[in-house]
């Protein structure tokens, strides 16, 4: 039975794509150079297709793991709605198409960074690190940090200090974001044998690490303002939201709750961390447009 087209959409992890597209778009709009709207649309499409391809290849490789976790067992591959071969062909085809289109229509730098981001997520994170080290999410975070850099490179044809800081922000945001989640879905990861930090090192170490990563993340978030790379709109919004993020991270760090269902600060930090990234990138664009 051929897979339904909706299963191919699900293979691309559409919920993750929203954040990828948003950060890519903000990276592009924050650039000092305006890109032709058609080429800008094409660049964002390529970022989305590249991220979708990486998601598909991730699901192709991790079908056995996904079958063991409640959160992922209804995905097309573990649920038996699609063959692994279809997922692999779809992922590779989409990845090649997105990179080729980016290179031909936009520029080579953006295409190169897009290639690196796809390979990073699939090879370094999915295949190499995820099953081997509890620091998997730290390195994997780099893959999610690329879209802003690609968006900027698509518009300007080069890489500057601000997109590198945006890269650092998303990179350093990923550990507290994912570890907050993994604290209250720990049993799921343990059942699948994934060496997430709470499974390997325990809750206390994970809570401390959440707080430790929040410190450099806060620096990367606020730094563009004193460095003169953004205006006050971004600076004030970033300061307020980073302070709230830090407060929630402190609450997670001092919590001693062991019952997953009762882990309220962890759930609050995870939910707020998503809003945090949307608001900061939105503020960055607003700052550029209104300045």
């Amino acid at each position: 039975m051929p897979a339904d087209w909706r299963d191919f959409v699900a293979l691309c992890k559409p919920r993750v794509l929203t954040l990828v597209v948003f950060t890519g778009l903000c990276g592009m709009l924050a650039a000092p150079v305006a890109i032709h709207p058609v080429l800008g649309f094409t660049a964002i499409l390529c970022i989305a297709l590249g991220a979708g391809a990486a998601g598909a290849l991730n699901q192709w490789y991790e079908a056995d793991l996904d079958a063991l976790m409640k959160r992922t067992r209804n995905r097309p591959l573990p649920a038996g709605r699609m063959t692994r071969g279809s997922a692999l062909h779809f992922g590779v085809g989409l990845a090649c198409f997105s990179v080729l289109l980016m290179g031909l229509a936009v520029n080579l730098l953006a295409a190169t960074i897009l290639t690196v981001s796809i390979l990073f997520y699939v090879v370094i994170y999915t295949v190499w690190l995820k099953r081997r080290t509890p620091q998997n999410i730290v390195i994997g975070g780099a893959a999610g940090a690329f879209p802003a850099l690609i968006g900027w490179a698509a518009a300007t044809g080069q890489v500057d200090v601000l997109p590198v800081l945006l890269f650092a922000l998303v990179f350093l945001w990923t550990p507290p974001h994912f570890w907050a989640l993994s604290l209250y879905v720990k049993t799921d990861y343990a059942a699948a044998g994934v060496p997430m930090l709470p499974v390997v090192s325990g809750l206390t170490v994970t809570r401390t690490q959440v707080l430790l990563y929040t410190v450099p993340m806060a620096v990367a978030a606020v730094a563009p303002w004193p460095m003169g790379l953004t205006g006050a709109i971004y600076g004030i919004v970033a300061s307020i939201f980073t302070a709230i993020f830090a407060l929630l991270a402190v609450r997670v760090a001092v919590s001693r709750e062991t019952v997953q269902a009762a882990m309220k600060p962890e759930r609050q930090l995870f939910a707020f961390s998503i809003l945090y990234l949307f608001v900061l990138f939105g503020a960055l664009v607003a700052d550029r447009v209104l300045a």
Partner: protein
Amino acid sequence: MTPVEMTPAELAEYRRRQKSRALVMALALGALAILFFAISLAKIM
């Protein structure tokens, strides 16, 4: 399982999926044709 070995219900579902996939592919190819044309114009201008 080939279409010959399917029950009528399975065969109907098989055809429905084939048809919907073909339609999505046609729409995607049409959209790409328009996009490539727009990219060409943007590059020329």
